[in-house]
């Protein structure tokens, strides 16, 4: 499904602020895998997601999706394969456009856009039903500009948009981090719902270690540009947050530091 081979990414090579963000990352996902990614500051989690999305081109290495080598494809060319939700709720939607228009933009993901009207009654009906499943009352606000929505509502809409147009992979980059705790829980529930409905393969970066162990079927831990831990199945079920931290210390010999990380059980 997704195959990442020997990925290296360097920023500002040869300059004083050189940053070797990915140092030989290998990762293979099967269809339907839901992988949570944790790691300390600057571990390369977001860089990894950006390389999969096509925002960054790696110096060395290969990204394959569905057996196709997409390493050199720009973002817009691989859009039909990859849906994405950013941490910032403002990034995933067009603020001045209405809810239904945003959904219409997303439903043409990676397809040819022509001179037909972007919206019609059939589509409106479809969108209304989709939105009603979110349980946020957005189905009655189809014609509202997105800028009127709260952060949580926008993120929920972004999630829906990220799954429209049948992408293969969903990338979630700390997509609940900017929300208040109650809204974050709502968004997590919606995430699980849409992932299940669309049978998506997911890479999710999170700063909540407990959530990382509870969601999905596999957890990887990154540090200094490498994957240092990859657990699934029984091993993962038996791992606690404290256990994760202990494993980190054993592997790296330094403390797990992330200024936002949630350590609570």
């Amino acid at each position, binding site marked *: 499904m997704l195959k990442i081979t020997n990925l290296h990414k360097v920023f500002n090579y040869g300059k004083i602020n050189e940053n070797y963000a990915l140092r030989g990352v290998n990762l293979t996902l099967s269809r339907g895998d839901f992988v949570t990614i944790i790691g300390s500051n600057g571990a390369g989690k977001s860089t990894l997601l950006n390389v999969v999305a096509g925002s960054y081109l790696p110096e060395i290495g290969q990204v394959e999706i569905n057996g196709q080598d997409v390493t050199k494809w720009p973002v817009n060319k691989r*859009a039909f394969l990859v849906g994405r939700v950013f941490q910032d709720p403002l*990034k995933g939607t067009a603020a001045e456009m209405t809810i239904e228009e945003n959904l219409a933009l997303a439903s043409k993901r990676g397809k040819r856009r022509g001179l*037909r*009207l972007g919206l019609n009654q059939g589509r409106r009906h479809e969108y209304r039903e989709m939105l009603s499943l979110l349980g946020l009352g957005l189905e009655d606000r189809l014609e509202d500009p997105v800028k009127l929505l709260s952060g949580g509502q926008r993120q929920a809409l972004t999630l829906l948009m990220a799954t429209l147009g049948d992408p293969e992979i969903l990338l979630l980059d700390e997509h609940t981090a900017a929300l208040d705790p109650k809204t974050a829980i709502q968004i997590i529930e919606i995430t699980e719902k849409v992932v299940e409905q669309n049978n998506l393969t997911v890479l999710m970066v999170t700063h909540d270690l407990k959530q990382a162990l509870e969601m999905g079927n596999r957890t990887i831990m990154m540090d200094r540009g490498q994957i240092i831990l990859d657990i699934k199945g029984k091993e993962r079920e038996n791992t606690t947050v404290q256990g994760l931290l202990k494993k980190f210390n054993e592997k790296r010999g330094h403390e797990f530091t992330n200024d936002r990380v949630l350590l609570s059980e």
Partner: protein
Amino acid sequence: MWINLFMRTIEQGIAFSLLAMGVYLTFRILDFPDLTVEGSFPLGAAVVAKSIVLGVNPFLATLLAFIAGGIAGIITGVINTKLKIAGLLAGILTMTSLYSLNLRIMGRSNIPLLREPTIIRIIEEWGISSRFVALITFILIVLLVKALIDYFLYTEVGMAIRATGDNPVMIESLGVNTDYIKILGLSMANGLVALSGALVAQYQGFTDVGMGIGMIVIGLASVIIGEVVIRTSRIPLATLGVIIGSIIYRLAIAIALQLGFAPTDLKIVTAILVIMALGAPSLRKFMIQDEFAEHLLEEGVSDVKDN
């Protein structure tokens, strides 16, 4: 006499509204500060004048002007997206090149059209009262263009253009090549601007190579006035606002002239108008902060600086 002046002013407003529409497309829809306008407006006028003088049918000549403007827009778009030169500079480069090109097209700096056939004169021959010909012609053209733009901005491509101006990262992640979209938008916008130049040249009876100076500010002023008159996020209303804005701008200018302003001072008046309108949010922010401080003082907070 007053009626005549009023009608001429309305006619001008409508002829220039296509320029405002182009500026609306780039500045507002595409979020691209495009200065190509200053060159594509006289380009349209130059192409239409030269073609008419060479014996081309005025309707065809007007269409050629539109196409020429579209090409100018494409050039700015390619300079910006493919060569990664900032949008503002890309527009300036095209505009500067167009000055030379326009002189080449015209062969001299001024072409009179008073004795030539124009679309206005052709329609006059169809038997419409000559008093209303220009007005009716311009209204029909502008309404047709407005309807096409309104429709287009709700199509799949048109929505991609709006999204590119709104959130380019997002629309790219949905599979849209924002480079092509920008080039397309700039091309359409400058086509409209050149069309406006072609109409104005036929209306005033001559093309002058310097007639593009200040056009960007006039276009912006019209767009801003339109936004004040009609506050909306709906495209058909917004484009209507642009047309109304252009007419109101011409009326304001006519009044200023009647009041005794020198025609040469109008550009600075227009510029100040735009500065005030665009600067209003910042000015308001100062004022609100002051109000807030006043409010605090009234509540008995003696020294706001020390916490």
